[in-house]
């Protein structure tokens, strides 16, 4: 695990103070940070174990779907080409990795919302365009779809 910026700030300020009283406080902060990290690791391990138990109880259809969920990804070459065609300059590999990742999360949010819409309307998959459009409408009203073309009105 990494030391996040807040912990880094605490460590830095703890180390620049000189008097013995503040050295004791600094030690206390360091111990607290260590305990927090251990707790986080324990939670992660629990999480991993729970996932294993869940996945081991999947039906074949669920396993198929889970495999597709984990494995599907946007092709890096296409994403890189797309981003570079927009910027006109080249982009680093990390940018492509990050962009592919958040695009997949975005796609997931849309599909999940569309499935909610579909269920709410008493219909069944496969998802139809009307579900997708209603999902987009709802996500837009929650501000989850970036749109820089909308003319912002400050006072309604």
């Amino acid at each position, binding site marked *: 695990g990494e030391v996040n910026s807040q912990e880094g700030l605490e460590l830095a300020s703890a180390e620049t103070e000189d008097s013995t009283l503040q050295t004791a406080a600094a030690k206390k902060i360091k111990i607290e940070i260590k305990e927090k990290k251990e707790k986080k690791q324990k939670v992660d391990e629990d999480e991993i174990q729970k996932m294993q138990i869940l996945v081991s109880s999947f039906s074949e259809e669920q396993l198929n779907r889970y495999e597709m969920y984990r494995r599907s990804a946007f092709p890096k070459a296409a994403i890189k080409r797309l981003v570079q065609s927009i910027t006109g300059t080249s982009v680093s590999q990390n940018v492509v990795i990050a962009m592919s990742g*958040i695009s997949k999360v975005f796609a997931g949010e849309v599909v999940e919302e569309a499935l909610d819409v579909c269920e709410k309307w008493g219909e069944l998959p496969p998802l139809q365009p009307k579900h997708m459009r209603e999902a987009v409408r709802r996500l837009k009203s929650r501000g989850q779809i970036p749109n820089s073309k909308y003319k912002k009105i400050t006072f309604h």
Partner: protein
Amino acid sequence: AGRVWPEPGGACDAAGRSWAWCRTTRWRRPQPRRDRGRKCGAAASMADEEEDPPFEEDTEEAGGGPDGGQGKRKRLFSKELRCMMYGFGDDQNPYTESVDILEDLVIEFITEMTHKAMSIGRQGRVQVEDIVFLIRKDPRKFARVKDLLTMNEELKRARKAFDEANYGS
């Protein structure tokens, strides 16, 4: 020569390698594409993805509305998006129109993010820090980017250590 057609409906070959898109055909990719400029004249796109949908799409957006109107562009992510939609909970065979709508949404999302990233930090360039900044309010995406970049660093370190270990022997 060396071109292998996928089985119908398949998104990956038996070894789990994904298909790379050429303009009109699908090629298995054992090596980087060198033939991007070459026209694949003969074969049309695989018929297995052009199923006739059993229903009519709404025609309200005749000219092309905000969500589904960019029909002229070649489909970039059709195969991958199909797998993704199934993974996220849709039917094993999603409707092509829905896949198209989702593709347009994703491309619009990437375009917006790219433009925003270009306008902050170092202007005119897209850097990871800008993306992370833009995402900071969205917990899911933020956590995902953090995980991906951390894992990438670990993989790079592991690969480097592996290569150094082999270099000695």
